[in-house]
């Protein structure tokens, strides 16, 4: 990570009381994680996280997160492109709705998914009749993850597209390229870093998903019980294992956040969030 070459002494620019509150704010975030880490039974950690249930949960979490990230990429990139490059009636509304899962309580997301994909839902019902019901399956987990993670990817890519502008695409057009060729050869590679960043964020969000998964998919070891659900379950019967698995998630989250920052992948996201929807 880059560091500003000049460090400004506190007090020159920032009032002392602001600095003090800032310390408190940082502490509010850091202290709980640190305390949790102190509680962790580090020597026994390997043993704690390699129990059959824990490994099942870890494996399930990893692969559902990967799968939902892929789905997010497939669905999100076209959505981002349309949002960034076109204007149509209701553009702002579509953009707002796409953002919705970011701010919805996960349990609400889960209820919404249940209403849609559940056995009696408009989508889930017919699927269930065909024997393709998603309830209580790993597919439901992927759907829940995708639902809550998609906005991260869309916002990252859309922001990057806006920052990059359409000049490259216009250049491609004057060179005779079809829209399709331009998309694959020019547009997509140009936003690849943001796409990677957005995908990492979506992956991390999927990894940590709890509420929507529990509400929508259920909880069964190896099928729908992801790592956060396993931790929630363990916290009663085996608090040490719960803390150990928590540490695993904390480390994974740190790795992802650091990776996203170093790819510059949040630039698009920041641009997207810092900018009002195109008028």
């Amino acid at each position: 990570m880059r560091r500003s070459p000049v460090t400004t002494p506190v007090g020159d620019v920032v009032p002392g009381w602001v600095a003090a509150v800032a310390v408190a704010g940082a502490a509010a975030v850091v202290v709980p994680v640190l305390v949790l880490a102190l509680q962790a039974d580090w020597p026994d950690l390997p043993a704690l996280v390699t129990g059959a249930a824990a490994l099942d949960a870890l494996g399930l979490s990893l692969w559902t997160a990967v799968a939902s990230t892929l789905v997010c990429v497939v669905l999100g990139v076209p959505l981002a492109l349309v949002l960034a490059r076109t204007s149509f009636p209701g553009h702002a509304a579509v953009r707002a709705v796409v953002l919705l899962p970011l701010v919805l309580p996960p349990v609400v997301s889960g209820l919404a998914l249940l209403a849609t994909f559940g056995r009696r839902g408009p989508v889930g019902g017919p699927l269930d009749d065909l024997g393709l019901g998603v309830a209580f399956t790993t597919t439901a987990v992927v759907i829940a993850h995708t639902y809550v993670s998609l906005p991260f990817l869309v916002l990252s890519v859309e922001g990057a597209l806006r920052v990059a502008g359409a000049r490259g695409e216009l250049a491609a057009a004057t060179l005779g390229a079809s829209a399709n060729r331009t998309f694959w050869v020019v547009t997509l590679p140009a936003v690849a870093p943001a796409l990677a960043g957005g995908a990492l964020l979506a992956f991390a969000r999927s990894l940590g998903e709890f509420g929507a998964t529990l509400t929508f998919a259920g909880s069964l070891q190896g099928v729908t019980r992801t790592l956060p659900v396993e931790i929630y379950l363990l916290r009663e019967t085996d608090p040490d294992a719960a803390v150990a698995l928590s540490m695993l998630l904390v480390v994974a989250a740190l790795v992802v956040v650091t990776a996203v920052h170093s790819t510059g992948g949040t630039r698009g996201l920041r641009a997207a969030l810092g900018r009002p929807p195109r008028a």
Partner: protein
Amino acid sequence: MPEDAPYAGRMATQDGAATGGARLEVTLTDPPRGLDVSIEVRPGRTLALLGPNGAGKSTVLRTVAGLHAPGRARVVVGDTVLSDVGNGGRASWSPPRKRAVGLLDQQPDLFGHLTVRGNVMFGPRAAGASRRAARTFADHLLDAVGARDLARRRARALSGGQAQRVALARALAASPRVLLLDEPLAAVDAPSARELREVLRRVLDGVTAVVVTHDVADVRALADDVVVLEGGRVVEHGPADELLAAPRSAFLKDLLEHDDGADDLGPAPHPAPRSAPHSAPRSAPSQDGRRPVARHAEAVEALVAPALAGGAPQAVRVAELLARAAGEAALPARVLARDARAAVALPGFDNSQMDGYAVRAADLAGATPDAPVALPVAAPVPAGTSPPPLRAGTAAPVMTGAPLPDGADAVVRVEDADPPSFSPTDVVRFTAPVPSGTYVRRAGSDVAPGGVVVPAGTPLGPPQLGALVAAGVPEVAVAPVPHVLLVSTGSELVPASEPLGAAQVHDANGATLAAALAQAGARVTPRVVPDAPDALRAVLADAPPDVALVVTTGGVSAGAYEVVRQTFEEAWFGHVAVQPGGPQGLGTVSLGPRRVPLVAFPGNPVSAYVSFELFLRPVLARATGAVPARRPTGRARLAEPLDSPPALHQVRRGVLDDAGRVRLVGGPGSHLVSHLAAAGLLVHVPPGVARLERGDDVDYWEIR
């Protein structure tokens, strides 16, 4: 395309330069931007498009590239219409990727994630070239721009100059038929710009190209032709070397003044931003302080012709034109705005070119003088009726222009038949075979249905009307009649019909010019204003909305009450090397949202009229189709000697006497209206002539 087919684009030559560009024609009208421009680039030539910021240069380029859609536009490359929008008829518009129009911008806009070679290969690959062929072609072009050694570099790692080279190669690799360059060197550091300009000079040779630039060095190095845009209009155009040597527009003069001529110092600083597109500093007078007549005429044409060409074509019924032509009003001057196409074939039926016998050629196949073919004579074919079919083995007498009977496919002249006359006979003999089609005018052989009877741009005279009637064309689209706001300035002036007060004169100027403008095909709104800028502005504010041209008289000298000069500060005012009519003005004025050309003539009636004949009538007549388009000219001997200031082009008024010699009417002084009224000739005494003797030849224009 086979995998290994060599890809050479459409026009690459050995040295990598693309050649054989197409002709480019672009006309656009964009009222919100105040644009009204018509530009043509001949095949293989490079046009420099100059003008102050905001003049509309980039809009022209973007319109050609298909990145901008103005209100009205027509873009033609070669035979292909790329845009035809807002001109009536079905709009057509090709997307940028189908235009084969390359664009090199100020910023290279390279694809940063690709290698340099990948960038250049992009166009050929998009066109379907194999990877190998595209690579070969790309390397070829990278050689041409001197960037071959960069081929494997990532495009985002290039310097500005390198990137622009690569962008040039990339644009050329897409084999454009026209290449547009929008300030291609503006963002490049000076040494790189110098090198890149040299590269451009090489590769643009033979390419149809338009370069927008603020840098005289670019013009010198690259341009074959120059067009100067100001306020959305073409104010000057011509070959680059001529315009650089003798610039006419204020902008170009200013640009050249600020150019120190040191081409190798990189881009000259841009002219300072201007508060308005037209606030270019008053141009310095040329060496003798006067503008040559021909140059001013061209300047007027460059400014006025595009404005007169604008406006939606009007539909006119041919019958109405005929009725007016037959009445007292005489045939109004009209120019066809669109091709008139035949509704029916011309001729409408197969007919005979000769008096003779309609036959079937096959019947005469074996005829020789020794063994003539004898055919029974069928009923003669009268004109104006539909004849019965010609039975095989018969011949029907037919008159010139009469329809050929069905079945007949040739005519044998009566003098080639035996007997060689239409004597009453039952049998006619033929001594030679006749090829099918002989002496037959086929239906549609003149004009097929839908074919062009009279092309756009033709003035409608009697022959054209005849052709239209013959081809069954009921209605034609003609160029609109230009509306001219004619403003006579002078506090002493009173409109023609009103009584005079003390120290007042009637507006003879307005009368003369109004009639002259009308004769040249324009519609005129005359106005008289006192010597007060506010009054002049009020008249302009009140101008009818369709005025295409403003003509003023008076107020152009250097006196204290020069109202026209004071009001139109941004226009050009100066002296033209002509007598009478030296002080002239030219520019554009705002009429509401539009800018229309302003032609300012001096206030003296004779000066104003001579100015009109010299500078405005040719442009106007060409646009309206008024006849004659040019005054008939002649050359005759002088009946008397004359003196002329050698620095000026003198225009004297005269008549031809009974002996066919030129007799002058009145002296060189310009104020004698009665003498002008008596004159039928404008006598031209070119610059450099101080005196002509009796008997010397002079050129004249007939003005009646």
